[in-house]
């Protein structure tokens, strides 16, 4: 069931109404039923996979929790008779048991994800190797089902399991409540990848009808649809034209496509997240933000702290730190400091972990080399900026421009262009082609031709450009105003007429200018495919 379908809007209307009519203690049960109905629309087979993840993670979490309790009780009961060493040895044994349970569950669930998502990628690469070695053997591709949102719900569930193992919070005792945490429908298909302790209170709490919360939620949903239907889906037409014909659209067209895609992706992904967080808000469930005006970042590290925040923090907490501070890595660090010297040696664990994380981040986005190169490209520029920091320091000490508005604007534009350039790998989906097209921006000088005639041959008419320009201006203005706090709260403080005019206009604009005219279907959200 697409977020952009009438069926989904009807589904929401029924859900919101029933949610505030039924007894409050049943609200979470309704959400569970709604989530499974929503998911069943993707195919009954998908339910089997989400069911396996739910059940195995629940059981593993409970076993780990039980072990924590057993350890606590045993140590309390034998406090006097056990020596410090005996206590330590006992703790170590229990820790190993918990670790074994967690590891089995992680392997099983990431194994399912890996098999379903990456089998054909591995086969394609093996066929390539076979061809290189002169073999005539060709391995057949497998027709595998890829359940909707599998990357998101697997990561969310495994994050929960690791946290329970770490003792961050106790495991959920109720299987059905846990099933709701895994399957909560607004976030199921494109995130955010929530933490259990962030979502628990909202999901299982009792919610009374609160008009302020509900109206804010509805406003956010409307804003999400505006971004998705008016901006992203209209921009998609131009993007598809530009990347669909690489022989014609070279030079300045590539630059234009890069800007179009940057805007399309932002409007699409943040629009989807606005709808998700808005739905949760109507239901009285607070959810973490996934974006903090990322295109205003002044550097690549800052950008990744503000774009798809929940994925970045997942990788930092559950992959980057465990790799970079594990015992073998600390030994490597010790060795590298001795051999390579203090300055270079101490970078080894950080950079080794970064490369691993960005490789996985790339492959998480898609089973293809373009995503791997995209991930490692991000890693390269992060390391480069890290290494250049002493140079930046010297520069700023010498020229004192750090706080100048024009210099900040330069940093923002530089970061935006760098991130947009890397994202071309996502656009063209082919590494050599991306490099070729990137190079053509500097060799094919066709700015005049593109601006005088070319822009009118991209499937977008004058009215589309006007809608896109006004839409982008609104997006930019809201982002600028949003730096001072919640825009909806600012509007709510104005007379009621102002709210009515603003959101009424937004609604009319979405209905009138949403890209669902003749011969056009509202498309899937880009992040659904991950």
């Amino acid at each position, binding site marked *: 069931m697409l977020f952009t379908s009438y069926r989904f809007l009807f589904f929401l209307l029924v859900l919101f109404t029933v949610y505030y009519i039924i007894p409050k203690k049943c609200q979470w049960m309704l959400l569970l039923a709604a989530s499974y109905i929503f998911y069943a629309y993707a195919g009954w087979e998908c339910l089997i996979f989400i069911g396996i993840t739910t059940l195995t993670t629940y059981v593993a979490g409970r076993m780990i929790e039980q072990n924590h309790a057993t350890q606590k009780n045993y140590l309390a009961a034998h406090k006097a008779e056990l020596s410090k060493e005996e206590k*330590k040895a006992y703790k170590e044994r229990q820790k190993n048991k918990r670790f074994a349970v967690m590891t089995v569950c992680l392997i099983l669930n990431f194994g399912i994800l890996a098999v379903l998502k990456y089998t054909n990628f591995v086969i394609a690469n093996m066929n390539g190797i076979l061809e290189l070695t002169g073999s005539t053997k060709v391995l057949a591709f497998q027709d595998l089902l890829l359940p909707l949102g599998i990357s998101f719900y697997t990561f969310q569930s495994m994050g929960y399991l690791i946290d329970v193992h*770490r*003792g*961050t919070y106790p495991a959920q005792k109720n299987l059905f409540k846990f099933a709701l945490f895994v399957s909560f429908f607004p976030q199921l298909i494109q995130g955010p990848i929530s933490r259990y302790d962030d979502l628990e209170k909202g999901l299982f709490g009792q919610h009374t009808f609160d008009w302020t919360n509900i109206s804010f939620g509805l406003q956010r949903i409307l804003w999400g649809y505006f971004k998705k239907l008016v901006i992203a889906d209209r921009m998609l037409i131009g993007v598809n034209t530009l990347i669909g014909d690489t022989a014609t659209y070279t030079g300045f067209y590539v630059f234009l496509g890069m800007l179009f895609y940057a805007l399309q992706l932002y409007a699409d992904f943040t629009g989807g997240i606005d709808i998700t967080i808005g739905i949760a808000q109507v239901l009285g469930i607070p959810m973490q933000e996934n974006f903090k005006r990322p295109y205003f970042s002044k550097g690549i*590290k800052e950008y990744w*702290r503000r774009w798809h925040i929940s994925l970045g923090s997942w990788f*930092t*907490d*559950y992959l*980057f*730190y*465990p790799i*970079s*501070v*594990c*015992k073998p890595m*600390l030994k490597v*660090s*010790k060795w590298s400091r001795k051999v390579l010297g203090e300055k270079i040696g*101490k970078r080894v*664990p*950080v950079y080794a*972990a970064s490369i691993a994380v960005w490789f996985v981040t790339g492959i998480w986005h898609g089973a293809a080399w373009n995503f791997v190169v995209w991930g490692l490209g991000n890693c390269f520029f992060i390391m480069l900026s*890290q290494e250049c920091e002493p140079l930046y320091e010297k520069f700023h000490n010498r020229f004192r421009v750090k706080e100048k508005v024009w210099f900040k604007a330069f940093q923002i534009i530089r970061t935006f262009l760098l991130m947009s350039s890397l994202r071309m790998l996502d656009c063209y989906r082919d590494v050599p082609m991306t490099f070729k097209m990137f190079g053509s921006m500097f060799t094919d000088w066709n700015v005049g031709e593109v601006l005088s005639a070319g822009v009118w041959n991209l499937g977008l008419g004058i009215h589309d450009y006007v809608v896109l320009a006004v839409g982008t201006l609104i997006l930019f203005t809201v982002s600028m105003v949003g730096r001072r706090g919640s825009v909806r709260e600012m509007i709510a403080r104005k007379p009621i007429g102002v709210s009515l005019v603003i959101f009424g206009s937004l609604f009319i604009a979405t209905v009138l200018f949403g890209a669902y005219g003749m011969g056009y279907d509202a498309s899937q959200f880009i992040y659904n495919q991950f």
Partner: protein
Amino acid sequence: MEQLLEILSDLHPDVDFEECDTLIDDGILDSFDIVSLISEINEEFDVVISAEHITPENFNSAEDLYALIERLEEE
């Protein structure tokens, strides 16, 4: 504590680590700093800070971090 303050000052000479208690919340220490710090602490104090200990509560101030080191030394 002196030893820890020295390690922290080497990392960010411009920060007053005796006073600051928002090292994580304000983004003063990033993930690169934290890993370097843990590796230094491992050398100097002979304790192993693992990933599960990396929380804002343990890293927001030098005092919090020192309390963590003491806890781990006791274990």
